[in-house]
């Protein structure tokens, strides 16, 4: 399986938009051949894809990005593997907790582990991350306790962790909005003279939002140290990426004056290298970068979704062959002295994680009723106080009744 294999499916599907004949027309010129010299395997109009590890687990050389993973140790590779396995396990546990009624909803990251672990592990502690609602793997890398992610899906809160605890912002559901917050945060870093950087996650669907374009504009104009990390998982609920763009998304950046790169989003090493490269640019004061991680949403959009209504299963099957975890395992098994013990231990750790998640979720108490009125304002608000008091009196009236009725 070659490089094309990861992108091949798209070429066919994109032909629908291609019927217009204008993409790659004379006037659109060199679009898509921006870094044509770097890779010969991607021919003609096929957009270039950075890939360091093939679906078969073969390491391919890449002059540009190899330096960013040059001194990675086997232990670190096993660490990435562990991250992906545990993230997937956590995700599966959450999905089944939803089925059991413990969660109201779950947005699975199945298939996107490499994009998230690769980019997440590229960040430094002082960097700041702005996720969408699906970055469970990035949260893991940032050290956010996975059970904290479940509160909002269980319906006990709208965001259950301190963003400043791990420099990992709350999940943002309204798509695209967080790219502006990330840009502003990065502007602040630059003002502070720090060399930290920011990663803003968003999806292929979100790329159409005006806010994302404005984030590109602001970050370019202020040269903000932000990496825009787009997980193109091919789908925005039921809409394929052709409904958002007729050229590869990474090319969007160029017209705003900063570079864009497409990386194999199922290649954890590639994602790590490209994100490191982009973060180092940011730290050096070279401004924003767009990384498009080309990956696939293996499962439903959320547990409320039924993908059989809009996509063929053979697509998913084809992508299974490019599984991010399987390919790193092949590599570990063939190129390192990782022994069975490692995998067995990890399996046990995985089981334990699943157990812990189940237990914590089931024990998660419902919030106190008065939480409705908490934190609406930092400095208080007379009306909130008034309504809280009325609510208390109203609640108390039932207590009275209960007492009267001898309950």
């Amino acid at each position, binding site marked *: 399986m070659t490089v094309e294999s990861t992108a091949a499916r798209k070429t066919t599907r994109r032909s629908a938009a291609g019927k217009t004949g204008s993409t790659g027309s004379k006037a659109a010129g060199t679009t898509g051949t921006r870094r044509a010299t770097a890779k010969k395997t991607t021919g003609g109009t096929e957009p270039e894809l950075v890939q360091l590890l093939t679906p078969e687990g073969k390491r391919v050389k890449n002059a540009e990005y190899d330096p960013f993973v040059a001194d990675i140790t086997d232990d670190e590779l096993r660490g990435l593997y562990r991250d992906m396995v545990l993230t997937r396990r956590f995700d599966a546990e959450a999905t089944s907790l939803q089925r059991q009624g413990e969660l*109201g*909803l779950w947005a699975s990251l199945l298939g996107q582990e490499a994009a998230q672990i690769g980019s997440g592990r590229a960040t430094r502690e002082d960097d700041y991350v702005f996720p969408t609602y699906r970055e469970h793997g990035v949260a893991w890398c940032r050290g956010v306790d996975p059970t904290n992610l479940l*509160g*909002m*899906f*269980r*319906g*006990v*809160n*709208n965001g259950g962790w301190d963003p400043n605890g791990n420099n990992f912002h709350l999940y943002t*559901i*309204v*798509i695209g909005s967080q790219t502006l917050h990330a840009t502003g945060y990065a502007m602040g870093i630059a003002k502070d003279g720090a060399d930290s950087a920011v990663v803003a996650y968003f999806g292929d*669907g*979100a790329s*159409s*939002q*005006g*806010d994302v374009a404005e984030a590109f504009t602001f970050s370019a104009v202020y040269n903000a140290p932000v990496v825009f990390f787009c997980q193109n998982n091919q789908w*925005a*609920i*039921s*809409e394929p990426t052709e*409904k*958002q763009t007729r050229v590869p998304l990474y090319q969007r950046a160029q017209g705003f004056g900063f570079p864009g790169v497409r990386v194999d989003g199922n290649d954890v090493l590639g994602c790590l290298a490209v994100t490191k490269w982009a973060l180092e640019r940011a730290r050096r004061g070279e401004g924003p970068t767009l990384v498009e991680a080309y990956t696939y949403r293996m499962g439903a959009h959320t547990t*409320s*979704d039924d993908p059989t*209504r*809009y996509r063929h299963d053979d697509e998913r099957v084809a992508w299974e062959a490019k599984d991010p975890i399987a390919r790193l395992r092949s590599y570990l098994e063939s190129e390192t002295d990782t022994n069975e013990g490692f995998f067995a231990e990890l399996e046990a750790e995985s089981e334990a994680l699943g157990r812990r998640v189940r237990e914590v979720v089931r024990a998660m108490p*419902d*919030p106190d*009723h008065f*939480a*409705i*009125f908490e934190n*609406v304002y930092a400095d208080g*608000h007379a*009306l*909130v106080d008034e*309504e809280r008091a009325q*609510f208390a009196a*109203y609640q108390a*009236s*039932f207590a009275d009744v209960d007492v009267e009725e001898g309950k």
Partner: protein
Amino acid sequence: MTTQTATSASKNMALAKAINESLRKALEADPKVLVMGEDVGKLGGVFRVTDGLQKDFGEDRVIDTPLAESGIVGTAIGLALRGYRPVVEIQFDGFVFPAYDQIVTQLAKMHARSLGKVKLPVVVRIPYGGGIGAVEHHSESPESLFAHVAGLKVVSPSNASDAYWMMQQAIQSDDPVIFFEPKRRYWDKAEVNPDAIPGPLHKARVVREGTDLTLAAYGPMVKLCQEVADAAAEEGKSLEVLDLRSVSPLDFDTIQASVERTRRLIVVHEAPVFFGSGAEIAARITERCFYHLEAPVLRVGGYHAPYPPARLEEEYLPGLDRVLDAVDRSLAY
């Protein structure tokens, strides 16, 4: 709000299905009618309200759009200028705000700006309200934010029959209509008679007659008010229930007529009370019925707080007990 003629065409259907049927009828009747939005095509919308429409009317008329609400409404305006009648879907209440500028600044004002030369028959469908245990942004009731804006009409059906007919009328209207669909009633069934003759779009309906107090509501709260009236009846209180159906314009005449009889009014909505519809209704009805009211107009609605996480929504939303409590308070005057 229909004049039921006894035909066999009458069908029992869920509110969501009634809208689906209504859209289908409009698409059939007028080639200029379009349906646009995120996931409205192959998926048929996240609530299946547009189920099967793309299959039957094609991608040119039932259009999956890029994920950009301002773009959806902005291009719908352009399509309307070209003579189309777009019905756009905003996937959930909390996602209408990226389109807010296009709605209040362009959609609402272009008719006046053009001195009447331009008409924008655009319907913006918004599934709204809570009670379905959803995550943030999926349970809001922003109708006040549209009713305050001249140039828009704002309606919300409470049952399948109204949903069917009000959608027909909204699409036929030459004005932009913000069509709030009570998502937690999507699965509630009622008789829909496609041969009926519907009443006017902006007229309120007396759902249940009563003598002691009037409950006024629209959309998802109408059913609750009926339940309240049932419960109150058991205690010997006779409540009148109004389904307002339209938030802009509000049918003050019908409310006034009712209050002149019952002398007491409670307005119930899910939206926060502060600057909500209840405020406008209370202010105007108090002015109109100053000497009739035995008690101040009371309001039961959301608190001045962001819509809470699902496990708290029951406390946040008006429920049977909270409305009954307001009834007691009103009757105590």
